[in-house]
């Protein structure tokens, strides 16, 4: 049985990577990810983790190193944030198109400028189309579980894709939480040793990263798209396996008090827990409100999402990033587009909040419900509002 301990979430994440027996960690320190890689580096230096820790000179090199080590058949982990993720940008696509089962913890943080080290989702929202599987955690326990799940899914021979586990910078990375850390035997039972589907081997030479002329590029992209779409079933299967092994359940879309709810919040990441308390408060006041949490962001579980929102009249989509030049945040833009294609009739209100570490309070969520219900009742245009801007 695992032990319930009080642990900083970053350290818990690093310990989880250790329990998963990563072979290579290549990373460059950046706030607020620093404690994750610092702790991993200590674990390797202390001989607690038999891995190669590569202190690269940039995030571009970190991801390049990860591609190389994964190609050589090593279980590979990295972690980054914000500008670091942006610097990885071009290699992120390569990792996915080469089908490298790299696992990355993304400590979500705003992008400059102005320079900000604090939390929002603008880093990962700029990387929506990198072809990676992307999950979101709301608390420390989920970070540990999703990290184990990430290796399990990434390395599954039916998947072979990189996985990014998103955890909110500071709000999660720097907070000490009670976390049930599993035993080595339990993790070993869940996650067998890595058997690469294809690796660089002098005895069986292959070329990775070759040119895709116009005759083949489209087919290569199609194969990638299908691989990501088909990973959905495997992702669910390994969440079921995780529930069996560790007793905690995860779903692509998770619902909270959605029965008979007229208004539904749609959230991703740690803010979802604040929204839960707001939902509880409003339910006590007789307001029919609930919450839908996007656990799996890529591949997007559209059918699960449509099912979860089926009974609602109004959605309140919370965005933690902006789409400058588009009248909605990234999550609402995508959801409205996908819902329109499905013929959905819901009113989709969109609020951008919590940018660059700005706190969002429970009362602000209550106000959002009032505002959205009024706008929906008056048949107003579906717009997007930035919450808490001082005029």
């Amino acid at each position, binding site marked *: 049985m695992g032990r319930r301990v009080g642990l900083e979430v970053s350290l818990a994440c690093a310990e989880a990577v250790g329990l998963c027996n990563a072979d290579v960690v290549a990373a460059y320190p950046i706030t607020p990810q620093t404690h994750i890689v610092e702790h991993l580096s200590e674990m390797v230096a202390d001989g607690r983790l038999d891995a190669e820790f590569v202190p690269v000179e940039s995030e571009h090199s970190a991801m390049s190193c990860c591609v190389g080590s994964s190609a050589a058949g090593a279980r590979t982990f990295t972690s980054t944030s914000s500008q670091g993720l942006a610097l990885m940008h071009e290699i992120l696509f390569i990792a996915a198109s080469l089908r490298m089962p790299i696992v990355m913890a993304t400590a979500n943080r705003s992008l400059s400028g102005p320079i900000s080290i604090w939390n929002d989702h603008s880093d990962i929202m700029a990387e929506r189309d990198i072809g990676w599987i992307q999950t979101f955690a709301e608390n420390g326990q989920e970070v540990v579980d999703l990290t184990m799940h990430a290796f399990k899914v990434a390395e599954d021979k039916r998947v072979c894709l990189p996985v990014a586990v998103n955890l909110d910078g500071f709000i999660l990375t720097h907070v000490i939480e009670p976390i049930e850390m599993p035993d080595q035997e339990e993790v070993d039972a869940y996650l067998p040793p890595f058997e690469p589907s294809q690796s660089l081997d002098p005895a069986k030479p292959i070329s990775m990263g070759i040119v895709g002329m*116009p*005759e083949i590029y489209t087919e290569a992209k199609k194969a990638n798209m299908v691989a990501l779409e088909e990973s959905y079933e495997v992702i669910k299967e390994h969440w079921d396996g995780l529930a069996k092994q560790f007793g905690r359940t995860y779903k692509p879309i998770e619902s909270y008090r959605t029965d008979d709810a007229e208004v539904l919040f749609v959230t991703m990441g740690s803010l979802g827990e604040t929204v839960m308390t707001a939902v509880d408060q409003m339910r006590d006041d007789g307001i029919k409100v609930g919450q839908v949490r996007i656990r799996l962001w890529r591949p997007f579980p559209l059918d699960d999402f449509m099912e979860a929102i089926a009974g609602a009249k109004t959605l309140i989509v919370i965005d933690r990033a902006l789409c400058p030049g588009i009248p909605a945040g990234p999550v609402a833009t995508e959801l409205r587009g996908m819902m329109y294609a499905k013929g959905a009739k819901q009113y989709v209100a969109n609020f951008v909040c919590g940018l660059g570490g700005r706190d969002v309070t429970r009362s602000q969520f209550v106000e959002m419900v009032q505002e959205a219900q009024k706008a929906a009742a008056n048949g107003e245009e579906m717009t997007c509002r930035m919450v808490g801007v001082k005029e």
Partner: protein
Amino acid sequence: MADEGMTPWKDLALGCAGTEPGSSRRFNTGDWRSRRYPVTDRETCIKCGLCWIICPDMAYSPDPKDEGYYTWDGYYCKGCGICIEECPKDAISWKEEKEEDKYGPACGA
């Protein structure tokens, strides 16, 4: 675009890896050549081998029938003209080429 070089997406190796050594041999860079091709005048050629070394698409190879000279393969020659530029004796010159004769005398397909 013809179907040459095309593969159904399901048949591609994982991550579009190249699983067959030397598959670029099948790549018809000669298809890029237009209207002209290089011809060597063996009277002038001093057998230095520079064209063989510098051709970026390895269109020249040692002539098995006439030692010291080099044969040209139109399947690979993309018509860049580097050999013409670099030959120390100006032994190579352009010759007009019709589209129908394009692949040249030694097509290696």
